[in-house]
């Protein structure tokens, strides 16, 4: 991880924090996660205000440092939620600290909100951006990445609105982009290395679903559908986890469209597309490693 020296924070000895759940605000997916609650620093809110005023009105860097120290437990608590996705916890703490610093620097002391309320989405946002940026297998211009993310959302919205899959022209109009830009942005999505279904879609196309999307699947239904079908015995399927098998089963044995699968599984259509490609690639690798390859992606 390469970051500016100014942004580096050492999460050394951490002050204790109170064991109470923090209200992170509506729509914060981390708050929806069934994992451990986000913990709020135990210090008094008055101290926050004093330090913020000293920093913003008097320019006290010492007050800023003190705020960072006070909020490190919150950063660590939030970072821990994302640590199982292949990143070191300390790296994520560093990334989260950047979000914290931005929150402190941008905080408006005249507004009647608490720093915790303002800092939490900033910290989560920075961690998610980190995953999103790292998720691109090749260097893709930021604008195209963002258009790709926007298109993912628009595909969902327009599919519901139109009751069919939108055309490129319709996507272009909705995204306020040209058709060429849409085609290019969709293609850049191929460069996104989608995370495993069982790892959720952090930083993925939705930039919003951090819980395991397949938690929404009914386990009995999943087991019934897959095990009752010979697909589970199909060559190469052993390389996939049960949930990936389920996606392919729905597409290639049940004949569901991507949008139908997306709706059934509770993830975006673009995410389904990526997962299908990735799963097919894994089957191919599995078959090739065995010396046979009747399937190819």
């Amino acid at each position, binding site marked *: 991880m390469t970051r500016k020296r100014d942004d580096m924070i050492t999460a050394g000895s951490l002050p204790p924090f109170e064991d109470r759940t923090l209200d992170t605000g509506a729509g914060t997916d981390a708050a929806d996660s069934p994992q451990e609650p986000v913990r709020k620093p135990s210090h008094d809110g008055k101290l926050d205000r004093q330090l913020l005023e000293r920093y913003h009105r008097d320019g006290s860097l010492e007050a800023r440092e003190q705020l960072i120290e006070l909020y490190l437990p919150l950063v660590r608590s939030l970072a821990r939620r994302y640590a199982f996705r292949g990143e070191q916890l300390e790296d994520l703490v560093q990334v989260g600290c950047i979000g914290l610093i931005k929150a402190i620097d941008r905080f408006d002391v005249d507004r009647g909100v608490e720093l915790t309320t303002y800092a939490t989405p900033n910290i989560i946002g920075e961690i998610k951006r980190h995953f999103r940026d790292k998720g691109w297998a090749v260097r893709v211009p930021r604008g195209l990445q963002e258009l790709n993310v926007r298109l993912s959302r628009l*595909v969902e919205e327009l599919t519901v609105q*139109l009751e*069919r*899959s*939108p*055309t*490129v*022209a*319709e*996507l*272009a109009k909705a995204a306020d982009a040209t*058709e*060429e830009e*849409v*085609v*290019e942005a*969709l*293609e850049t999505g*191929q460069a996104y290395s989608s995370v495993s279904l069982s790892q959720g879609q952090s930083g993925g196309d939705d930039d919003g679903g951090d819980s395991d999307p397949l938690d929404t699947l009914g386990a009995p239904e999943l087991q019934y559908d897959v095990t009752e079908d*010979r*697909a589970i*015995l*199909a*060559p*190469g*399927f052993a390389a996939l986890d049960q949930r990936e098998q389920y996606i*392919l089963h729905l*597409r*290639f044995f049940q*004949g569901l*469209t*991507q*949008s139908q699968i997306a709706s059934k599984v509770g993830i975006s*259509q673009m995410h389904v*597309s990526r997962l*299908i*490609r990735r799963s*097919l690639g894994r*089957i191919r690798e599995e078959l*090739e490693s065995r010396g046979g*390859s*009747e*399937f*190819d*992606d």
Partner: protein
Amino acid sequence: MTGSSETIELTLPRSPRYYGVARMVIGGLAAGIELSYDALDDLQLAIGSLLDNRDLPGGDTVALHVTVTGDGVSARIGPFAQGSMAAAFAGSSASGGIDLARLLETVVDEVVTDGDGDGDWIVVTKRAVAAA
């Protein structure tokens, strides 16, 4: 692009590095005929699978002839080694897996194979569903 049927021909090195070009071309052409995102993604998956298929030996290059009609897109891909297409499809129904035949039958509307002096070719067609 005007008229009821026009074809664009593309010759690519047989390397994954260039397959994105094919997908971009398909995407660009699909935009003109109101192919849905769903259908476009399916067609791109089919073409990507054919281009990158190690069961279909061929030369150093692969040709892609994309024909756009009023109601869809057809892509003729080849040449592959003589007889390789039949071999790739043979016994596919018995495997129970997601082989080439099952994949193509699932994602495109029509699959036709043919051969000429150069080798085997495959034509996949995806039709646009009228945007109501």
